[in-house]
């Protein structure tokens, strides 16, 4: 049981740090949140830089253009890029974390040759067409219909929460190909070109206003059968491959950010006046800060345990649901704590007051993230679904239905 990094791992970290220090000053500032074409350009330009430096697809197999890094190196990569303030994966998320790994695992040679390199280079963006108005937590009840017509599927229906649909080139699409089969047995996984005729993409106005989510309407959209990944009606199994990728590493950068945010909050609390003292003189606040710090330290240790398990056995182990449950709830509490320190400066999404410049943070960013964090306990399996997973798959309790 060891938390120390090997000389090779330290070497990897140092090389990455040096590269980040060289390249980050050349990266242009983040575009406005609602300027999606600019965000696509920004995120894909960063992906191109990673590609050219050999860091794209860090954990993808070498045979498919990735770096083939170990899980520990992958962790170091996520930690260092976050600490250095590098751009987030952003619009590349679905391609790099869902669609690409699914094609690696389940795609044909032609599909891999066509799609993997453009994802790694940041040339093409993917979106995720899974959820529907009637299929959220119960994803397998999806009803968007695909009917075979010669060498095409003809798709009609309605997708919801399609991430990055307005800027995407392709969509990983789940459709119902056999409405008479049990719900898990009649689903097929298709690659949908987003310029297909018959598609209508409408951005969703979330509680943040603009967001990466859209709803997508399908009016007899024709998709070649060669775009099918896996067998017809075997899409649920193919999807599970994708989701296991999503649950592996999704929160690492945010945990690093949360630990830093806790210490920034301490610095800020020491300068804020509350009643006749500073906010930091309030033992109640200090204890809540200490408690959250303990939680994030433990979550970071849990990440390292999962990574060690992945490295030893090839699978991340049972920790993913535990991590998601506790992290997302801790993150929401952290944002509430930040709001306690900010008090009325937490009432606007544009910066108020000068306090936040102390730590290089802006009050507006916080408020934004406080709102955004509401989605964490819902997206990628709600906290309630995670508790079902823990109860049923880990503890062996029977299903309710």
């Amino acid at each position, binding site marked *: *049981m*060891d*938390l*120390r*990094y*090997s000389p090779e*791992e330290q070497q990897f970290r140092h090389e990455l740090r040096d590269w980040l220090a060289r390249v980050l000053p050349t990266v242009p500032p983040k575009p406005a949140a609602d300027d999606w074409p600019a965000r696509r350009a920004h995120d894909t330009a960063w992906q191109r830089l990673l590609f050219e430096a050999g860091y794209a697809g860090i954990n993808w197999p070498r045979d498919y253009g990735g770096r083939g890094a170990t899980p*520990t190196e992958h962790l170091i990569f996520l930690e260092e890029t976050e600490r250095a303030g590098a751009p987030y994966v952003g619009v590349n998320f679905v391609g790099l974390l869902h669609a690409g790994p699914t094609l690696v695992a389940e795609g044909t040679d032609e599909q891999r040759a066509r799609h993997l390199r453009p994802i790694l280079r940041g040339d093409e963006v993917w979106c995720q067409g899974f959820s529907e108005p009637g299929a959220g937590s119960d994803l397998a009840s999806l009803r968007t219909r695909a009917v075979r017509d010669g060498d095409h599927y003809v798709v009609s229906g309605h997708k919801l929460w399609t991430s990055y649909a307005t800027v995407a080139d392709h969509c990983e699409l789940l459709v119902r190909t056999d409405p008479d089969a049990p719900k898990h047995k009649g689903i097929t996984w298709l690659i949908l070109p987003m310029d297909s005729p018959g598609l209508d993409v409408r951005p969703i106005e979330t509680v943040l206003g603009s967001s990466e989510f859209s709803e997508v309407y399908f009016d007899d959209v024709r998709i070649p059968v060669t775009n099918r990944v896996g067998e017809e009606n075997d899409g649920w199994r193919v999807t599970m491959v994708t989701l296991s990728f999503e649950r592996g590493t999704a929160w690492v950068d945010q945990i690093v950010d949360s630990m830093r945010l*806790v*210490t920034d909050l*301490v610095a800020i609390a020491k300068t804020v006046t509350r009643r006749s003292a500073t906010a930091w003189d309030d*033992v109640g606040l*200090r*204890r*809540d*800060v*200490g*408690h959250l*710090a*303990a*939680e994030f*330290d*433990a*979550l970071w*240790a*849990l990440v*390292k*345990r999962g*990574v*060690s*398990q992945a*490295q*030893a056995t090839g699978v991340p182990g049972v*920790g993913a649901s*535990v991590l998601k*449950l*506790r992290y997302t709830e801790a993150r929401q509490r952290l944002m509430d704590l930040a709001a306690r320190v900010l008090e009325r400066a937490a009432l606007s999404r544009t910066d108020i007051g000068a306090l936040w410049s102390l730590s290089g943070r802006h009050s507006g960013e916080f408020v934004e993230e406080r709102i955004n964090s509401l989605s964490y306990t819902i997206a990628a399996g709600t906290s*309630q679904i*995670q*508790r*079902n997973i*823990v*109860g*049923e798959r*880990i*503890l*062996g*309790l*029977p*299903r*309710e239905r």
Partner: protein
Amino acid sequence: MHFLPTDDQLELQRGVRDLLAAKFPLERLPGGYDAGLWAELTATGVFGLRDELGLGLAESVLVFEELGRACVPGPLVATFLAAGLPGRAGSGPVGMLDPAQAPLLLAHLGIAESVLVLHEAGPQLAGPVSGAPVPEPVDPLSPLHELAATPDGHVVGDADATVRLRREGALLTAALQVGLAARLTDLAVDYAKTREQFGRVIGSFQAVKHLCADMFVRAELARVAVHAAAVTLDDPDTTDGPRTVAGAKLLADEAATVNGRSSVQVHGGMGFTWEVPVHFFLKRAWLHATEFGTAEDHAEDLALLL
């Protein structure tokens, strides 16, 4: 980085678990302190893991988790800590007293060969100590005595030694709490799989299932925090020990006490009976939560280290 117990560590942990399953099954628990078991644990080297067998805190927390899982009665942590102190007479149980805590309560005085007194200026070992029995200790398996004054003993270390003992004591107590938290989860899950109401096992209801899931999650997070703290204290090249131990103790206290309540809840009316052993685990967790710093103390200490 390889943050998983090694095969040797797992084997050690399994060995202690098997020993306790054989020698101290749940049916024996209401009997309280068991001198024969204590002698066997001593002979196995449980209290000398570090100071006699040369193993680290990483191994020690794995063993202490098992002691917690079996709810072994007795002054486990103080006896372990005393093994490394000079001038200790005998090898029997050692009690522990923190003179900064009021009232001056000492657990297991009746069996303690000596008492480790954690003075800020330096730890002392005190010989036979007397006190008045506390009539109804909340943990019936951990008898308490109230002392009129802090006993005098011989000095066995300096102020730094007290700091170190408090830290190691907090870590090992946290490991016991993790064991309690995990066993409380197992007891609840086992019950939820067999108890039927409304024509099906209650573990199939989400309201019950989610209680169990949260118990598991609490115990897992506390366990990983304890392991990280042990590895960090074992590593002479880092200064993160105090922070990680504080976090581990507070998360482990929370896991054990909240899981105790949840386990009683899952057991329903049976959980409120003396016959079902869940209450012993919860009451032990309440005792440990007051030892080597409360969760509140550690939260505040941790905040000041940020």
